[in-house]
């Protein structure tokens, strides 16, 4: 049997019980985000979630790129890599393929993940490595002090668009769906319970999971998600997607969404003509439906859908790597180093 030093480490049993509180995932470095930054909330929720998963702390890894959001790993008492700009996903991919035993998380920003890192992102979506990706979307490059990002809005004035942005933004959910991601979700920094719930769901999903989190940058783009976070108005502007549940929303769930053909249409139960029974029952196993609902962002009269758009299972890449190795070993025998060096056409001189 070939010796494997990594397996030796993996096989050392964890000392003590695997029982944590969020505190165990904090470390003693000062968190260097601005007071009020939306990232704090995401950090706090993830610390809570990880504590609950029953996974030994040393079996997590958290990977990031560069940006305010990408400072994330420094604030977690975990194995972590603060990467270079845009490259969080390839680091995480290499790590997860090598080490399927780890639970690998990625913290990234709208610039890091959708601008310079866009190619890695779409390939990660299709390749389906079991990573849990949280993208902190503040619709701005914050660390570099306020340039527009690929999610900034048309007309937005930033340091590098003093007369307003002229390129149309990505919708991260639609891009992820178009690239073939099997698990796609969206939530805002302020919706802490839902944030935790989706993080957990992403963890349970065996394969690539992508979570866009609206995160408020108080310095360079304050208030851009106000209508989805402000207590007064968020309920009428937000549609919570729940699997197998009808799509209703509003402060008192007085509105709903139904499909007219394939077009989502707002219904007001108060009009007496329609009721919850007319509403579309959401199915997060259907990628076409996910697309239909995700396209609601283009209609300003419709509420913004948040929650899990899609949750499909298919075998993950790193699993298929192992399967292929297993299959070939079974088929042709476990290869030895001697055999490998000799190859098929060798000769002996003696």
């Amino acid at each position, binding site marked *: 049997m*070939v*010796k*494997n*030093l*990594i397996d030796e*480490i*993996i096989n*050392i049993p*964890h000392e003590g019980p695997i029982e944590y509180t969020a505190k165990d995932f904090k470390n003693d470095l000062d968190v260097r985000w601005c007071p009020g930054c939306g990232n704090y909330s995401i950090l706090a929720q993830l610390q809570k979630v990880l504590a609950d998963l029953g996974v030994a*702390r*040393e*079996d*997590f890894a958290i990977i990031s790129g*560069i940006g305010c959001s990408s400072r994330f*790993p*420094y604030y977690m*008492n*975990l*194995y*972590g*890599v*603060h*990467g*270079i700009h845009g*490259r969080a*996903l*390839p*680091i*995480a*991919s*290499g*790590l*997860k*393929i*090598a*080490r399927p*035993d*780890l639970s690998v998380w990625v913290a990234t920003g709208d610039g890091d993940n959708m601008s310079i890192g866009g*190619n*890695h992102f779409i*390939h990660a979506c299709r390749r389906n490595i079991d990573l849990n990706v949280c993208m902190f979307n503040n619709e701005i490059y914050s660390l570099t002090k306020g340039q527009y990002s690929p999610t900034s809005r048309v007309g937005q004035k930033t340091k590098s668009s003093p007369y307003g942005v002229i390129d149309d933004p990505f919708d991260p959910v639609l891009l992820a769906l178009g690239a073939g991601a099997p698990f796609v979700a969206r939530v805002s920094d302020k919706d802490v319970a839902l944030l935790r719930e989706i993080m957990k769901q992403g963890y349970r999903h065996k394969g690539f999971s992508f979570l866009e989190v609206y995160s408020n940058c108080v310095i360079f783009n304050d208030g851009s998600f106000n209508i989805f976070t402000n207590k007064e108005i968020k309920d009428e502007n937000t549609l919570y997607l729940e699997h197998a549940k009808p799509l209703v929303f509003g402060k008192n769930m007085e509105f709903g969404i139904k499909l007219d053909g394939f077009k989502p249409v707002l219904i007001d139960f108060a009009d007496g003509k329609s009721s919850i029974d007319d509403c579309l029952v959401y199915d997060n196993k259907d990628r076409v439906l996910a697309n239909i609902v995700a396209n609601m962002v283009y209609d300003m009269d419709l509420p913004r859908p948040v929650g899990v758009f899609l949750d499909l299972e298919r075998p993950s890449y790193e699993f298929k790597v192992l399967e292929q*190795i297993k*299959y070939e*070993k079974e*088929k*042709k025998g476990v*290869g*030895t*180093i*001697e055999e*490998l*060096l*000799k*190859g098929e*056409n*060798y*000769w*002996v*001189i*003696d």
Partner: protein
Amino acid sequence: MKKQIKYIDEIVIRFAGDSGDGMQITGNQYAETSAELGYDVNTFPDYPSEIRAPEGTLYGVSAFQVNLGSEKVNTPGDQIDVLVAMNASSLKVNIGNVKPNGIIILNKAGFTPKYLATAQYETNPLDDHSLTDYQVFAYDINEIINFELADMDISPKDARRTKNIWALGLIYWLCSRPIEPTIEWLGTKFANKPVMREANIRVLKAGYKFGGIREEFAVQYIVKKKKVKKGTYRNITGNNAVALGLVAAAYRANLPFFLGSYPITPATEILHYISSYKRFGVKHLQAEDEIAGVISAIGAAYGGYLAATTTSGPGLSLKVEALGFAAMLELPLIVIDVMRAGPSTGLPTKPEQSDLYLALYGRHGECPLPVLAAHSASNCFEMTIEAARIAIKYMTPVILLTDGYLGQGSEPWRIPAIDELPEIEVHFAKDPKTFQPYKRDEVTLSRPWAIPGTQGLEHRIGGLEKADITGNVSHDPLNHERMTILRDEKIKRIADDIPLAKVHGEEKGDLLVISWGSTYGAVKTAIDQLHSEAKKVSYLNLKYINPLPKNLGEIFSNFERILIPELNMGQLKHVLEAAFLRPIIGFNKIQGNTFVVEEIKDKILELLGEAV
């Protein structure tokens, strides 16, 4: 018919034809069977960058050259003893390299007006007496084959596709070689195509018999057998050797192996090999681009794998930022650059040694990395393991330079026993009480390798400058200076851990010639020949370019003049001039091909004041 037998030491054969004529496979088979007989063999495939260029064109010629000798042969040979040319273009492109009175075997079917036109021949060389300086044997091979296979149910197109094998049979006769190994090979190759199997075997035999029957073939050659060291042998290309070296190094380090790569000529075969090693437990990712290739390898290295990335010039250019990152993380990583002619896309299928600057200096910030160079196909195996050893011991990316000539050329290789290979020690950090991510080993200055899954060692690393010992982010000015110097010093200390450079010939004298990488073949051969002619010239092959062997300065001080032949504009020359502040004579060739032995000899003789 009784033929004369001539005993010779070396023979260079070149098989040339259209891309579709199977010249690569023929040459390769000839080389394989030669090596198995115990000859030394050195090969080089030379094919067009077009996948399948139009028939008969000059740029569509595909050739495979084999140098076979009784002693060690270090190059595929300067000049051709026997040229097999399947059409007019193949003749035209290669005739310039055929030795005076050399043998040329031609397929007349490739000299019709159509072929002569695409070859841009004004008159037919078969008739115009332009080939009188050679021994020309011209036959309509297509017709011969049709005759041989007349009784078979085979399409004319398929029949024609065996013509390379007929030529191979004739070559076997010419070199007095058994055809049985090739019959066996054809049997396996066409196991599922009985018609093609039979056809090929028949024409092979026919070609062989042809030499014996025909009068014009008066002489048969026998290359004397060399005495070879006992052992198990195989033929190997440099790219294959790298692939094996990577897996062998991982084995010796007791680690699993990961390759993150993106296809690029002429490095792609390494990826092909690795991807076929599944039952050896190897993992790889064919990434979306070169950046993801190297970065995924960094991720795997963080996870404790021996990790590598393989590429050529344009890919190395893309990996620049990632290499600086890996240097900052201080994780082991093997970077293979199979160099090709640049700049930019350049001549993608042609070798050159012009990535040395990029390997040495190509990172922003102060970021020295070890740079090694392999000098022959089989040496690629050893140097890959050496790169891995240094990467792991010093926790650093290591760049190994090979080139298209080494990567795709082949030579026989005595397969080492596993315990002949260097052992590579890995000590993953385990103790939370003493662990500090950037606490360095006193001797090597390398930091500990602590992998996820180890309880109590949770820590963060990244591209920002880090505090000495703790590895926390640090903006402290003096710490940055200290860390920069430590990283530099770590690489410098590798000089204590690599072999001294070795001079061949006199230890002191007038002229020292230095080879590196693939110039080794031609330079070594030239020097051997000059030494046998009792010329006073010394020689050194440089395998470690950063850091340099510790005794190099001392060696240099023993010579008046130093000559460095290079396939670039003088990159190593520049590096060594800067290192030792003395002028070096450059000898440069930037033609997308390697030196031939004569060029090197002539240059040396010129320097020795001996007119040529």
